[in-house]
């Protein structure tokens, strides 16, 4: 069974393009356009990885991370954050939940797939935080 990726962004185009790219790469993709919807989906069926936008209505990406971390079933799910405002993230924000990486928009879908593969491989070999990328200003 293929691994499940949950993609969350309030921009429908971004969700669609990421879903297609990840599906073409062999993953099962679930889509959500805000944090609350994403949390609901994650609790219903635990994803193997979450890719979420940082700034979203109702619930921000960070709030989603915090919520996932508090639930037993989703506490260990690795999260990749996408942001159009890298500097709005403070280093201490990255300690929240299980954030593995932060990518600045505009991003490359190709690079996202590579990052997803690497993160899932790391998760399989042993849990823990990886080095944060330099995209965070």
């Amino acid at each position: 069974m293929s691994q499940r990726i949950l993609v969350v962004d309030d921009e429908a185009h971004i969700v669609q393009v990421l879903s297609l790219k990840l599906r073409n790469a062999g993953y099962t993709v679930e889509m959500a356009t805000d944090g609350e919807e994403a949390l609901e989906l994650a609790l219903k069926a635990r994803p193997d990885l979450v890719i979420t936008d940082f700034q979203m209505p109702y619930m921000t990406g960070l709030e989603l991370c915090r919520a996932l971390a508090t639930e037993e079933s989703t506490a260990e799910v690795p999260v990749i954050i996408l942001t159009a405002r890298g500097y709005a993230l403070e280093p201490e924000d990255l300690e929240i939940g299980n954030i593995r990486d932060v990518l600045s928009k505009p991003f490359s879908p190709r690079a996202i797939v590579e990052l997803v593969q690497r993160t899932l491989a790391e998760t399989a070999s042993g849990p823990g935080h990886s080095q944060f990328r330099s995209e965070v200003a």
Partner: protein
Amino acid sequence: MQAGKIASLTLGAVMAGASATLWSVAPHIPWLHQQQPLLRAGVLFGATVVVFAFILLPFGALIDASVAKLQRYIEGAASNDQVPIFGLGVRLMRPITRAFTGAVDQFRQREQALRNQLGDLEIRHRVSEAERRQIEAVLHAQRDAVIVTDAFHEIVMANQAAAQILGFDLASAIHQSIDAVIADDRLRQLIRDARDTGNFSVCRHVEHCLTVKDHDGDQAESRVYDVTLTCVENHKHEVGAVVTILHDLTREREISQMKSDFVSKASHELRTPLSSIRAYVEMLVDGEATDERGRQEFYRVIQDETERLGRLIDNMLNISRIEAGIVQIEREHVDMKAVIHRAVQTLEPQARDKDVSINVRLASVDLTVEGDSDMLYQVVLNLVSNAVKYTPEGGRVTVGADSDNLTRSVVVSIADTGLGIPPDSLTKIFEKFYRIENYKRVAKGTGLGLSLCKHIVETVHHGQIGVESKLGMGSKFWFAIPMRYAGSRAAA
């Protein structure tokens, strides 16, 4: 030879001659021979005295007359009258009058020089007085606080801004010690330090925060100042005075913060469509779309997002041009009825797709205003487009216009049966990049449309824009444009 010596010698010679004559004639007088020797000597002495008296008396009278003439001459000189001296004794008086005339001339020259100096000083005094008034006017016109203190840390000069910022009475502060006038400890210490260091070549800049009361003295607020301290050298090359200037940085900081916020929000808004464009282009390059339909969908997204990016950049530039006052306006008579019909016509297909009806209700009066036709079209288009976007299917948008004779303006209103605006968002809705978070999914926007409308209506046309709304009950945006534009051609 001097006249005085000649006169003395002549007098001596006359008196010697007279004595010699008397003494040589005396032995030939028989009567004298018959007298006692003592009496004879007495008579001869008496005769000599009489002869001398006869000689000296006219001479004395001559001296008297000369002294009187000299007196008149001196008196004349004192009152600046030239009294001529002639007659007897002139020669005798000449050295005195000559010396006196010389002295008088010298005194006159000195007097003239002093008068000239006095004139110069009076002119200089008037000039420096005028300069002092000018400097005072410059000083009091300054928004920066200026305080000049002397070597004893007493205030010699201060302006109204200083009195207001530091909260003292200007009239009574002069010649008072800074300890009695300036309440802020750090500022007093800065002034003392500036004098103690005595460095003339360097202006010291210190950032300092002060709590300042407003003009009414009711509310106090914290403001940031750039304090400049300059030492002024006196004639002994010591620190004669310290000039302290307080420049308010608060507004500059706020503007700088606003600029930084704008850039940050703008970059976020620009990155969003750019993300889609980049992602979809890469998908096409990587051949991720398996069929022609998929590719067409990618092209459409790229096209839409490119247009969105273009609109965003246009709006940003238009707003910043209006804010900077460099926008060129084609002011003409604009029939708002025509503008409304044009905008509604443009948006009809979009409304039809959503099953939203657009009703136009225009008063049957002249609705012509003076303004820029393209800009006013943009305002109507933006407001009607928003109304269509945020009105659910089956809803209704009503565009109305009427003239307001009281304010002599044309009022255009755009009402919808849409979602309405939350009360806390009503005041912020015209701010740049403000988006009602929960409506982001309903429609895509640049976050600049309403801000641009406000700028066009209020800054360019000196009109008014506003909104009334209840959550779930729809919204009504309105704007009023003066029928006759009163102002300069360039936008403020």
